[in-house]
């Protein structure tokens, strides 16, 4: 029998603030990562800035870890959070790859002429 306190432990009073801050930062860092990545790809920023983008993703993953451990999430939720982190990492790649592909495929069409089918 597992100790029930292991299943649903209390959140320590001092942990609430770090939890809220880290969970807000998860998406803010994540947004910055995705933003810089896209900006580099559409040539608003120099290519080396991609390093900064990955740096922000690392921060995102770290914040997720902090948030999850302070909240004492269970096994299942921990896995869900890892999936979300990986999803966020791949997201801009996938979006950029797909959009660019479509763009190239349609480069010679005149805009507004296709009927979308």
């Amino acid at each position, binding site marked *: 029998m597992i100790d029930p306190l292991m299943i649903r432990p209390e959140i320590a009073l001092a942990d609430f603030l770090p939890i809220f801050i880290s969970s807000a930062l998860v998406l803010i860092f994540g947004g910055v990562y995705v933003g810089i990545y896209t900006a580099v790809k559409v040539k608003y920023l120099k290519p080396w800035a991609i390093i900064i983008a990955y740096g922000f993703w690392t921060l995102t993953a770290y914040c997720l870890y902090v948030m999850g451990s302070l909240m004492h999430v269970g096994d299942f939720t921990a896995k869900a959070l890892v999936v979300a982190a990986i999803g966020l990492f791949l997201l801009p790649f996938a979006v950029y790859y797909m959009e660019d*592909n479509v763009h190239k495929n349609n480069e010679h069409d005149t805009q507004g002429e296709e009927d979308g089918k």
Partner: protein
Amino acid sequence: MANKSVWSDNRFWQRSATWVTGFAAILLIWLTFDTSAQISMGTDKDIQNKVTKRVPGPTVINYKITYERSPKRGLEVPIIGGNDGKGNSLFQEKEKFFGRDDWSEKEARAMLHLGKLGSQAKNCMDCHTLLGNGAYYAPDLTKSWLDPMWEDGTMQAIIGGTLGKELSKEEAMAEFLQHPELYPTHARQMPNLGITKKEAIGIVAFLKQMSSIDTNGFPRNFGKMKGAINGK
């Protein structure tokens, strides 16, 4: 352009969107069937047979209700009619509700019906929260039946003192609901909503039944911590 990839094919994504949406919707509907069965309201027979339902039937008002920690689930659950020591309801210990503890299923159901209707007709949810949903201008009512303000007799003393008679918990609650403006507990006062005596009794029955719903441990530690540690 050569080699058109599937990832940039409009049709592919249109189909994917349809499949994903369809799959999610079917899963939700399937879960809805399961959940609906689990949250359907119990009956008096269930209580007689000591069957714990997530939403007990209206005759639960004949029993004593508490909110205690279940060691098995690691959270607080409503306990009806006494605790067997392992966090399960015994359905034994009765409690008088407006002087009786033998309300029939029909009578109890009628009270609950009136109370639920009343809770909507008076827009309770636009100041209070019920099961945590609603507005945040007034206290949560999920476990209000078990609130220490009523459990320890504070409110009964205030209301009974004003009326010059001794009142049970449910009588005091019904009195408060009819004339909330006479018993202010905070600068923010509940207005008089024209609740009649019969409606007030119904609403109290509704609140008592709501406190017996298994809410997976929400709210946490309800009434276990007495007195402010630091209110600022």
